[in-house]
């Protein structure tokens, strides 16, 4: 059997299992759909775990629908339409841009309760035409506010005399990372720390070399604000190997990032707790069905991780909750 056949076989088997799982929904439990943009990274796997736990805790069928590859907004639209057609008790939508508006309005018009989670992008061109959308409950973190929270907690770890901070973006095309960077820079600006940008890649090896070059280009750099793991991990590696006195902060905590925090290569990270995003979004809908309670806003981006509490986070990671 070739790999292709093997892959196709496994893929088909998974499809079949998913289909059977859906077919089995014949009881009177409320069905809640969660529409996600991806199923292929740590963050979204943890989201799924949160959804599964919510299903158990609240006695609901929670179905996470995500495109097989990260295709952005476009991949979520057909899944959202399919969810509306299924007439569920409620839908949680990752409102990544105005692209999601038509589907969201369709759900509201069909009388289906909607909770937004992970993203509620309303700024600029994304401003919804339907006023109902802006008043929907939101579960997640405000990326730019998280940038501020993180950087305010990080500032005392930097030299007190303002020095240069390198802001490294591993996905220059992703808007959420731009928002994170904006939050970081607002706090740096206010504290008088100059900063410069480095557009990096999702390949850690290239980032290792890029960060090395950027640090050489400007020896006054005393801090690296990484906007995600693929930037933070090589940054930590570089400063550790070369015994440099540069502090690193980052967003999201994966296994390698946790190791670096423990070893001191990364000073601080903010964890947006994806598990809680789908968990509380599903909870919002479940309480609406059960008790007619209106969904509430939850800010999940409150978890700062340093050497002091990293062991707790590591255990949380191992359990699939972080």
């Amino acid at each position: 059997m070739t790999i292709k056949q093997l892959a196709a076989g496994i893929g088909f088997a998974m499809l079949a299992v998913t289909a059977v799982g859906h077919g089995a929904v014949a009881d009177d439990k409320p069905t809640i759909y969660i529409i996600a943009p991806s199923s292929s990274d740590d963050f979204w796997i943890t989201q799924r775990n949160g959804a599964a736990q919510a299903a158990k805790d609240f006695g609901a069928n929670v179905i996470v629908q995500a495109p097989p590859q990260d295709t952005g907004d476009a991949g979520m639209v057909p899944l959202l339409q399919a969810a509306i057609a299924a007439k569920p008790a409620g839908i949680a939508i990752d409102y990544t841009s105005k692209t999601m508006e038509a589907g969201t309005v369709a759900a509201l018009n069909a009388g289906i309760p909607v909770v937004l989670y992970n993203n509620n992008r309303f700024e600029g061109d994304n401003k919804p035409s339907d006023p109902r959308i802006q008043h929907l409950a939101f579960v997640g973190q405000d990326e730019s506010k998280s940038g501020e929270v993180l950087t305010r907690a990080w500032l005392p770890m930097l030299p007190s005399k303002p020095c240069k901070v390198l802001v490294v973006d591993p996905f220059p095309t992703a808007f959420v990372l731009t928002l994170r960077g904006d939050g970081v820079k607002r706090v740096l600006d206010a504290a008088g720390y100059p900063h410069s940008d480095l557009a990096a890649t999702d390949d850690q090896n290239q980032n290792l070399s890029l960060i090395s070059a950027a640090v050489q280009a400007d020896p006054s750099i005393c801090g690296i604000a990484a906007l995600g793991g693929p930037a933070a991990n090589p940054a930590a590696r570089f400063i550790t190997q070369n015994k440099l006195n540069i502090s690193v902060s980052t967003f999201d905590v994966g296994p390698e990032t946790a190791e670096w925090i423990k070893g001191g290569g990364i000073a601080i990270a903010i964890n947006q707790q994806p598990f809680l995003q789908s968990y509380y979004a599903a909870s919002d809908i479940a309480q609406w069905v059960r008790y007619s309670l209106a969904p509430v806003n939850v800010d999940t981006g409150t978890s700062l991780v340093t050497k002091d509490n990293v062991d707790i986070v590591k255990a949380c990671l191992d359990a699939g909750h972080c």
Partner: protein
Amino acid sequence: MRRLLSILRIREVTPLIGLLVVALFFTLRTTNFLSGMNMTAITGIAATVGIVAIGVTMLMMSGEFDLSVGQNFAFVPIVWAILFVSNHVNEWLSLLIALALGVLVGVVNGLVTTVFRIPSFIATLGMYFGLQGMNNLLISGHQLIMFDASLSMTVLGGPIGNTPFSMPLLWLLVIAVIFWFVSTRLAYGNWTLATGGDAGPAKAMGVPTVRVKRINFVISSFLAGLAGCMQFAYLRGVTQAQGDKYELLAITAAVLGGTSLFGGSGTIWGSVLGALILSSIQIGLVLIGVPGSFYVTFIGVMLVVVVIANTRIDRITEGTR
């Protein structure tokens, strides 16, 4: 003049000049382009891209493409890491199994292309998606890490003594020498160029063109997988994103090195130089403080210019014969 032109006909000369120009430019514009730390940075990228590009060059010389190398670059080390990091199988046995699976990818690419006679562009694009899905199935976005380097990891990706360089660079040189020898000193190299140049006459003269292509598909996949394992050993961690877009970087390095997109010509050292040019520019632009996203634009423009220049040089040198 004639002697100058005949030097230009040596395929490695143009990329060598290119690399020297790039290095000279950045050396003059920055104070630390030639620093040890910067050599680490440049060779850190060029080594693995270069090894992938060598396999891709052999395949391109025989007139085919491999778009699956970037995914294979993640697939093979993921299998290796799953076996020996997560399941504690013997590290060497795991490496052997992982590399064998990488070879299998090349076998499938070669068979699909030659048996069904479809463009390798399509066959390997299919494999690209197939492997992407497979990688997703295997680690679904997780990261596999092994901070305590084992013996095999040290051999593949450890530092070289007290130099600023790491093992992948040494492997790049070893692999380049091997495939330089294969492509220029063995009859197989002649067959590879003939197959890519014009398969009809090559076949008529008794060259087993189909077998040559299949073997080169395997070489391409094997080297991509091996380079991926080196990167894992070097970084001590692997994600699905490892090797993202390397299929295009490898083709770009090969083309910068003078390999023809239509098959029938190309050199191994040219591709190694091409990889060095790519990483020197990527790093150099950061050193002089140009916005990083400018790199891809720069590479795009340079790629087109180099292909035009190579075509012109071919025409000029032909005229002197």
